[in-house]
């Protein structure tokens, strides 16, 4: 049942983020942290359908004490974490947060994070508070 709910959440149409005109968020999901892991990551796509540039920063979540925008970068075959202070989306711009690339690092969960739940992610959009909700899934949606 919880898997079904998570799947249904994924099938919802792209949702506009509150208080961020023009921003469309899609394909949001969070990997269920394996037992023993204190962190995980959130993935989603962003599209700016408005006519003004958007700057997103100040990521946080009530479910995690520490949230940061990170990018996994390959140097040779070495994966490195790079901190990104903000995301800039020009009018018409797109950005995808995907496994092995750009992602929201979610560390120090404040409670159990299990598949089937949904997690709220908060951020600032051009200085205004905004948020999105992402379902917790056991596996990447594309691997289903």
């Amino acid at each position, binding site marked *: 049942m919880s898997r079904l709910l998570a799947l249904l959440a994924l099938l919802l149409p792209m949702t506009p983020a509150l208080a961020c005109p023009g921003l469309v968020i899609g394909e949001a999901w969070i990997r269920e942290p*394996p037992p023993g*892991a204190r962190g995980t*990551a959130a993935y989603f796509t962003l599209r700016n359908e408005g006519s003004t540039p958007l700057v997103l920063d100040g990521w946080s979540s009530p479910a995690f004490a520490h949230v940061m925008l990170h990018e996994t970068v390959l140097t040779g*075959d*070495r994966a490195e*974490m790079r901190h990104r202070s903000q995301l800039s989306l020009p009018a018409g711009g797109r950005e995808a947060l995907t496994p092995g690339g750009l992602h929201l690092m979610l560390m*120090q969960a404040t409670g159990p994070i299990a598949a089937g739940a949904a997690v709220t992610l908060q951020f600032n959009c051009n200085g205004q508070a905004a948020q999105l909700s992402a379902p917790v899934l056991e596996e990447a949606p594309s*691997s289903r």
Partner: protein
Amino acid sequence: MQASPKASSATALLVLVGFVAVSAGLIFAATRGSKAPDIPGLLWPDPPVLANFSLQGSAGKPIDQHTLEGRWTLLFFGFTNCPDVCPTTLAVLKQTVARLADYPPFRAQGQVLFISLDPARDTPAQLAQYVQHFDTRFLAATGDDAALDAVTVPLGVIRAKVEDGSGGYSIDHTSSIFLIDPKLRVIGKFGLPHSAAMLDEGFRAITAFRGAQ
């Protein structure tokens, strides 16, 4: 004009000598592996060989070179506080194992080993729980710096602690999946981005190639 019997037997001899020489050359090339076949991920000729090592596995069991002898091992390095690359790769390995379930060399001799590069935070018991979330057959191990070096150095695996900006740390590390053959030769290396299809094909092609050696 007709060739004399002497001339035609000389020609036959030349043809025979030529045939033997070409065959010997082909056999030599095949047995020496002087020309590596075009298999993505294959490390050949002269693959590095793992030296003796000793790590702590779950339930107090050591994981060492004997754990790998006679097996085909998919080996990956990481740490449990790794939010992106490690769980992504372990999820791909889970799918890979499912794809290889009907392939006799994997069914009989295949295994997956996750080695944590973060012994300060990852206990063997915690590691076992972590990998078994993906597949109950996955093995996990860690050890102190010297014990880890015994495995990472021959493989050229790099690990570097970096501050994560919240008082904690992350570990930048080599993210390739290695394939170790039953004689402890590091015969395959698969870099990011990983996919189950790519690992499945790579495993089958490399084990088939090795079977012919």
